[in-house]
C-alpha cells in the first residue's frame, strides 16, 4: 500500500479553445462541385460559432490529457455506493461497434433489422426472468426515466380503474431520484421511517397507507445495503389497500437469481443496465432503465414494444392504453448489446455475480466495523454504510476528509453523505469484480486513515495531495457561476472598465 507523493507533476490541461489557433482545422468535409443555394432572409447564420480550431495531432493530445486526469474503474478500485462500479468487459465495445448494430438506422424496416429486434426480445426475456415479472419495456433511457415511467404506469392503471389515488410513499433512505420522479409524475410524496434494524417501520407505514395511496417506491436491499426483512408484510399492507409496489432496481446486484422483486411482491420494477448489467458509466452516462411489470399493468407500457411472432420479431405500436412514448425509438440499443452480452456470458451463473458481490461487501464491512461507526449491526448485502461520526467528534475529521485522503491511496472514494439518515455517511459498494487484494488494500487504507485522523489530522484536512488539483472552492463555483468559456471577454471587459 503506498500513498502518492505530494508534488507529483501533472501536465497543464489547457481548454480546447486555448489550444485553438485561428485558421487551423482537422476535418475537411467533402465538397461536391455544386452550387450552394441561398437561404431566405433572416434564416442564415450571421456570426459563426467559436468552435475550436486545431489540427488532429493537438486534438488527440487534448483528449488524451483529459483522459489522463480522469480516474475510472479501469484505473482502480471505485467503491461508489449505489452505483455498482463493476468491471466493464472489453468485448462489449467490440460487439456494440459491429456495423450491423452501429450503422443500423432505427427507421429501417423491421424485416431488415431482425438481428437487432431478436437481441432486444431475448434481453426482455432474461430481464423478465430475473425480475419475476412477465412484461418488459426497454425504452427508458436511464434509471430515473424508468422510475418516472413506472409512476406514469401507476397513474394510467388507476385512471383506467376509475380510482383516484394521489400519493406515493418512499423510504426516508430513498435516493433523491425517487421524490424527484414523484413530483414530475404529478404525485404527492409521503415518507416512511426506517427502524433501528434498517427495515421500514411497519407501524409508521400502516398509519400512512390508505385509499389515496397509489403505491410504494422502494429499493431492496435499501440504500443502507440491508434487505428489508419485513418485505412480505410491506407488500401485504399495500396490496390490501389496493395500492401497487414499485421496485427501484438500483441495488439489484445483490439479489439476482437469489430473490426476485416480483416474488417479493413488487408489481413494477426498473433495472439500471449501467449498474447491474455492466453498461459502462461513461463519465456520467449513457445508461438504460428498462421496466418490467405484472400482466395487468402491461397494457399501459410505452410503445413501441418488441414482440415475437413465430420466428420473426417486430416493433408493435398497437396498444391503445399505452402511456405513450418516453424516449425515441426502442431505447438505447447500444446499451442493450452490452447488457445482453454480459448476461449471456454468465448464463444462470448470474447468481454467482450477486453472491460474490455480497461476499465482497461483507468481508470489507467485517474488517472495518471496529474502526468506523456501524449504524446497523447486521450482515449487509452488496453494499454497506459506515459513519465517520466518532472521528468527527474526537478529531474533527469528517467523511469528506476521509474521502479526500483515500485519493492519495489511489482509490476512488465511496459515496459520502448519503443516505441522509446516517450522519457522516460512507457508503461502500465493492462489487463482485474486485479481487481480494483490492479489498484488502482498501481496508488497509481506511484503517490507516483512521489512524492518521488521530495522529496527523492536518494531512487529512489538506488532502488530496497527489491529484491534479487540491480541494476546490465550490462556494465560488455556486456564487459566481462560470458555466462556459468566455473567450477572453471577461479580460477585455476588465481592461476597458
Amino acid at each position: 500500500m503506498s500513498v502518492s507523493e505530494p508534488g507529483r507533476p501533472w501536465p497543464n490541461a489547457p481548454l480546447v479553445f486555448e489550444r485553438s489557433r485561428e485558421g487551423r482545422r482537422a476535418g475537411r468535409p467533402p465538397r461536391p462541385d455544386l452550387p450552394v443555394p441561398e437561404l431566405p432572409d433572416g434564416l442564415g447564420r450571421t456570426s459563426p460559432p467559436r468552435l475550436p480550431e486545431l489540427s488532429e495531432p493537438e486534438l488527440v493530445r487534448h483528449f488524451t490529457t483529459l483522459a489522463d486526469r480522469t480516474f475510472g474503474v479501469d484505473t482502480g478500485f471505485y467503491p461508489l455506493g449505489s452505483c455498482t462500479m463493476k468491471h466493464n468487459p472489453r468485448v462489449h465495445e467490440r460487439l456494440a461497434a459491429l456495423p450491423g448494430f452501429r450503422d443500423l438506422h432505427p427507421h429501417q424496416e423491421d424485416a431488415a433489422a431482425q438481428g437487432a429486434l431478436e437481441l432486444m426480445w431475448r434481453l426482455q426475456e432474461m430481464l423478465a426472468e430475473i425480475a419475476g415479472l412477465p412484461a418488459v419495456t426497454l425504452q427508458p433511457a436511464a434509471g430515473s426515466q424508468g422510475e418516472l415511467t413506472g409512476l406514469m404506469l401507476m397513474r394510467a392503471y388507476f385512471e383506467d380503474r376509475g380510482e383516484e389515488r394521489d400519493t406515493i410513499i418512499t423510504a426516508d433512505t430513498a435516493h433523491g431520484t425517487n421524490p424527484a420522479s414523484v413530483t414530475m409524475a404529478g404525485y404527492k410524496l409521503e415518507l416512511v421511517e426506517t427502524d433501528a434494524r434498517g427495515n421500514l417501520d411497519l407501524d409508521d407505514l400502516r398509519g400512512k397507507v390508505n385509499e389515496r395511496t397509489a403505491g410504494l417506491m422502494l429499493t431492496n436491499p435499501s440504500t443502507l445495503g440491508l434487505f428489508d426483512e419485513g418485505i412480505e408484510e410491506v407488500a401485504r399492507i399495500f396490496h390490501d389497500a389496493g395500492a401497487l409496489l414499485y421496485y427501484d432496481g438500483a441495488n439489484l446486484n445483490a439479489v439476482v437469481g437469489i430473490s426476485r422483486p416480483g416474488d417479493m411482491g413488487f408489481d413494477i420494477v426498473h433495472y439500471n443496465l449501467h449498474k447491474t448489467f455492466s453498461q459502462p458509466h461513461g463519465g456520467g452516462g449513457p445508461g438504460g432503465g428498462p421496466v418490467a411489470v405484472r400482466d395487468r399493468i402491461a397494457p399501459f407500457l410505452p410503445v413501441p414494444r418488441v414482440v415475437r411472432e413465430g420466428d420473426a420479431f417486430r416493433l408493435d405500436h398497437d396498444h391503445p392504453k399505452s402511456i405513450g412514448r418516453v424516449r425515441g425509438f426502442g431505447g438505447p440499443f447500444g446499451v442493450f448489446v452490452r447488457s445482453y452480452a454480459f448476461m449471456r456470458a454468465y448464463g444462470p451463473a448470474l447468481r454467482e455475480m450477486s453472491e460474490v458481490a455480497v461476499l465482497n461487501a461483507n468481508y470489507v464491512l467485517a474488517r472495518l466495523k471496529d474502526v468506523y461507526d456501524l449504524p446497523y449491526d447486521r450482515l449487509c448485502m452488496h453494499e454497506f454504510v459506515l459513519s465517520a461520526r466518532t472521528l468527527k467528534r474526537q478529531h474533527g475529521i469528517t467523511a469528506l476528509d476521509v474521502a479526500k485522503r483515500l485519493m492519495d491511496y489511489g482509490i476512488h472514494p465511496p459515496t459520502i453523505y448519503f443516505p441522509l439518515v446516517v450522519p457522516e455517511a460512507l457508503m461502500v459498494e465493492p462489487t463482485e469484480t474486485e479481487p481480494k487484494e483490492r479489498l484488502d488494500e482498501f481496508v488497509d487504507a481506511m484503517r490507516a486513515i483512521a489512524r492518521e485522523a488521530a495522529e496527523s489530522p492536518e494531512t487529512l484536512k489538506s488532502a488530496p495531495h497527489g491529484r491534479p488539483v487540491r480541494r476546490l472552492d465550490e462556494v465560488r463555483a455556486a456564487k459566481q457561476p462560470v458555466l462556459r468559456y468566455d473567450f477572453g471577454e471577461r479580460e477585455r471587459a476588465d481592461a476597458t472598465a
Partner: protein
Amino acid sequence: MSSGYLSLTDADRDEMLAAIGVSSVDELFEQVPPGVRFGRDLDVPPALGEAELVRHVEELAARNVHTGAELSFLGAGIYDHYVPSVADVVLARGEFLTAYTPYQPEMSQGVLQAIFEYQTVICELTGMDVSNASGYDGATVAADAVFVAKHALPGRTKVVLAETVNPQVRQVVKTYAPGFGLEVVEVPHANGATDPDAVAAVAGDAAAVLFQQPNFLGALEPAPELAEAAREAGTVPIVHVDPMSLGVLEAPGAYGAAIAIGEGQAAGNWPSYGGPHYGFLAARSEFTRRMPGRIVGETVDADGRRAFVLTLQTREQHIRREKATSNITTNQTLLAFAGLATLSWLGPQGLREVGETCLAIAQYARERIPLEPAFAAPAFKEVAFRTPLPAREVVRRAREQGVHPGYVLGRDYEGMDDVLLVALTEKRTVEDVDRLADVLEEVCR
C-alpha cells in the same frame, strides 16, 4: 468461479468467510426471508465463453441491413453524417468509458473539463448563455424544456407544439404533459411549414411554444417570426435544432428563442438503431437556476489553480429531491464527448462546409429526382417528394435494388402516404443521388 470477470478462488472465499464469521455464503443471505427466496436456477440460456459469445452476437448483427449494406437516404431524426476517428479516441479511453459522474472533482478533472468544453460548444452553436451536460435524447429534452417553462410561468396550463416537430418529440412531450398539469395543443402545418399567426392564435395561456428548425418535413420554418409570435404571447419560445445545420442556419439565440434543444446524434454518434445518443439543452441566462441536469462550472482549487466542478447542484435530485428541476441523474456524457470531439474536429469552417454541402446536395436531389417536391418551402438536408404509388411500396421496390430511398411520412402524418422524405448528408455524393434518381425512375413507373 464460472466467469472470467470474477476473481474469487476457493482460498479467497474461505479466508473471507472466516473474517466475516460465517461458514458459508448462504449464511450471508439469511436476511432474505424464505418466502421470497428464488428456489431454482435462472431460466436463461447457458453461459458462453468469449469466442462463442462473439460468434453468437455477430450472427445477430449480420441479420441487419445497415447503412453500409445498402445505399440509404433514411433520416427523419437520425442521420448518417461522418463520424471522425478522433471520436473513437474519446470513446475508447478506459478512463472516460468507465468513470462515473464526477462527484469527486479531484478524481475527475478530465471529465469535468470536457463537459465544460461541451457546454461551451453547445452555447456557441445555439447562441445561448448556459447549457447542461446533456439529456437523454432529442425527444426527452423537449419534455425537460417544457418542465422549465412550466416552472417559469406557473399558472399557465398549455404547451403549444408545431405539428412539424418530430413526431417522436411530440409523443414524448404528450406522455410527460399530464404529470406537469399541461394540456398539449398542436398547430397544423401549412404547406410543410408553420404559420406564425396560427401559433399566436393558440398561444395565449401556454407556458411554451415548441417548433423545429429545420422541421421534420425537411423544410425551413420562418423561425424568427415563430419565436416572436411565441414571445408576444408571453410564452417561452423553445426551438428544436439540428446541430449540423448551425454552421449555416442562424443560432436560435440570435432570433429570440429562450431555450434551444435538439438531438445531438448527427454530431458525432453512429445511428446504432436509435441510441444511445445525447440530447442537448441550452437557455438564456435567466433560466440558469432552473436548468435540469448536471452543469459544470469553473473555479479554483486551494492553490489557486483553475479547476472544474459540478455546480448549482442544489437544482438536482440528490439535494433538492421532490423540488428538483428534473429527476435526471445518469445522462449521456460519453456520447456528448464524441459530439465535442467531432465539432472540434470540424471547427467553424468545417461545420459551415458540412452545412453548405447539405444545402447543395439537397438542392441537387430536388432537381435530379424525377418526383414532385411535396412542399414549396426551402430545405436544409431533407427533401419530401410526392410518389405516384404509396411511398411504402416505393421503399419496398427500391430496397430490392439495394437502395433505401427514405422515410414514409405517412407513418406519422395524415394524407402523406404518398410522401417520401429523402435525407442527404455530406456522405452522399452526386453519384449516390444519380443512382437514387435512376432507381426511383424505375420503381415509380
